[in-house]
């Protein structure tokens, strides 16, 4: 040990806390293994559906960082997602079929959109923030619909070539291979968001969520922190947009409609705000209901989503993440 003085005893992790970490590591590792091996057993249709779930999970996790961790509930998260999707589509059609490059361009476009509107938007709070993000989402939606020269208007952009993983590489046409590409990209993106959430900056964001006034009196330039996270989640949403296009090979104004924003927010609420991994489960449920259950119900998926939302609010006020056993650390102080 290079440290001369031992840290105060209250900082040492307790045995139960360490055990909980090990358990969580095992569960996470098992889940990753299952996710990675799925295409070997599943049909192409199932792989397609799981790909959509993964993409939506990244979108929901990024929204959770903004809403659950930083306390900024956005109703316009489809805007950076859609801008990323259009950017990826245009890059694919005109510049390169290399998927990772499309992803980077889409992330940059999502961040750029967030950076350009963020200065204004993050100054608003609560309902005003909700309304401003909604407005941004609608404006971007209308732009996609009207700016026909670039976006193809309401027809959208079709004929997007399949991605390649490397320059000059083979086109990815198998649903399973595409799934692996999307899985890798989503895991990378989610890992970045989790790292940010656990960092000192993540703690700053939670402080702002709890009590912004107090944060300022501690010397935090809270607007700057909120702007930073707004841009980060914009980049993640843009990246998700490029993955969406890599699979659908089509993009239309529907991809940045209010429905996408609302579904993402629903996934966050279902998952339990602020837990990140909970949002991924919420995203899976939302996509499954919309894409799998809805056709069987004659297109009444949104109705089911609404019912699920009401039930969730009553039964799971803290979402899926609230289902786990109460954290042991919570009782530590009382036990002594």
């Amino acid at each position, binding site marked *: 040990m290079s*440290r001369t003085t031992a*840290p*105060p005893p*209250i*900082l040492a992790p307790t045995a139960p806390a360490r055990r909980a970490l090990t358990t969580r590591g095992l569960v996470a590792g098992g889940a990753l293994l299952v996710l990675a091996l799925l295409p070997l057993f599943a049909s192409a249709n199932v792989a397609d559906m799981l790909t959509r779930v993964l993409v939506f999970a990244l979108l929901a996790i990024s929204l959770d960082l903004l809403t659950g961790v930083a306390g900024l509930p956005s109703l316009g998260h489809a805007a950076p997602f859609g801008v990323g999707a259009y950017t990826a589509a245009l890059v694919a059609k005109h510049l390169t079929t290399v998927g990772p490059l499309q992803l980077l361009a889409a992330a940059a476009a999502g961040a750029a959109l967030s950076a350009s509107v963020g200065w204004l938007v993050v100054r608003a709070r609560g309902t005003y923030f909700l309304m401003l993000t909604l407005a941004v989402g609608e404006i971007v939606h209308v732009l996609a619909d009207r700016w026909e020269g670039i976006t193809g208007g309401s027809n959208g952009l079709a004929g997007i070539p399949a991605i390649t993983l490397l320059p000059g590489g083979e086109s990815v046409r198998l649903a399973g291979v595409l799934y692996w590409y999307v899985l890798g990209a989503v895991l990378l993106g989610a890992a970045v968001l989790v*790292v*940010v959430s*656990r*960092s*000192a*900056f*993540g*703690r*700053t964001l*939670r*402080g702002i*969520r*709890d*009590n912004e*006034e*107090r*944060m*300022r*009196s*501690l*010397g*935090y*330039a*809270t607007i*700057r*922190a909120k702007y*930073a996270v707004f841009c980060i989640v914009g980049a993640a949403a843009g990246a998700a947009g490029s993955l969406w296009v890599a699979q659908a090979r089509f993009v239309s104004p529907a991809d940045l409609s209010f429905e996408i924003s609302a579904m993402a927010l629903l996934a966050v609420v279902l998952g339990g705000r602020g837990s990140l991994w909970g949002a991924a489960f919420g995203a899976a449920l939302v996509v499954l209901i919309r894409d799998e259950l809805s056709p069987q119900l004659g297109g009444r998926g949104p109705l089911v989503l609404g019912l699920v939302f009401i039930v969730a609010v009553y039964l799971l006020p803290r979402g899926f993440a609230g289902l786990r056993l109460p954290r042991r*650390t*919570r009782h*530590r*102080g*009382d036990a*002594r």
Partner: protein
Amino acid sequence: MTALLQTEELTRRFGKLVAVDRVTLTVQAGARHAVIGPNGAGKSTLFGLITGAIRPSAGRVLFDGHDLTRRPDHVRARAGMSQTFQHSSVFTTLSVLDNVALATQRAAGRGMRMVRPAGRHATVQEQAARHLELVGLADRAAAPAGTLSHGERRQLEVALALATSPKLLLLDEPTAGMSAADSARFAELIEALGPEVTVLIVEHDLDVVFRLATRVTVLHLGKILAEGAPAEVRSDQAVQRAYLGDAVFDELFGAAP
């Protein structure tokens, strides 16, 4: 001695009411300076003008040689002002340790670091733990701040204010709602602070004021009524009249024979 904080002709009007009326106040570095006054004297408004929560109608706030009149609250905090709030203002969903770590990580310039896990900033965590021990909350470090009792929240509030290593500690009625024991403990904590921390305390409880203060300013109807050493102020007839009012004075101590 040099002045750490000066207000010059500081004024704040709310409509026709002049809550703070041309207050010129000097707080010497290292002082334990108290501002007292009856309800409605403008103490809290003056406090807000100094911390930046309220914008002045006229006048200036000088701190540590800089004019901070037009600077927002977080800039004043970075310049070395730190405050406690009259109503405990903590981060209820975060652990007690994380609450204080928010203060120490800002003071260490780590508040925007995005890679290393928050708990691995060793000095930030250790300083936070030390401040918890200082105020006597070490055994509650892992509890969410929302589960603390009222008295414990007040202690946490003080830990938060001290953890930014301030030059000036601004205390807004710190002992409001504290038990006598907690009050005494709080007074000990402030007495134990070194001369590098200047304290400006706005307080209702005169026992605490006369125990801690080296200098007292009396505010009445937005204006400075008197200022001096605690003993001088205590024996000032005008202060007694203003603070207690003739009628109340009689009620409490009996009419003069």
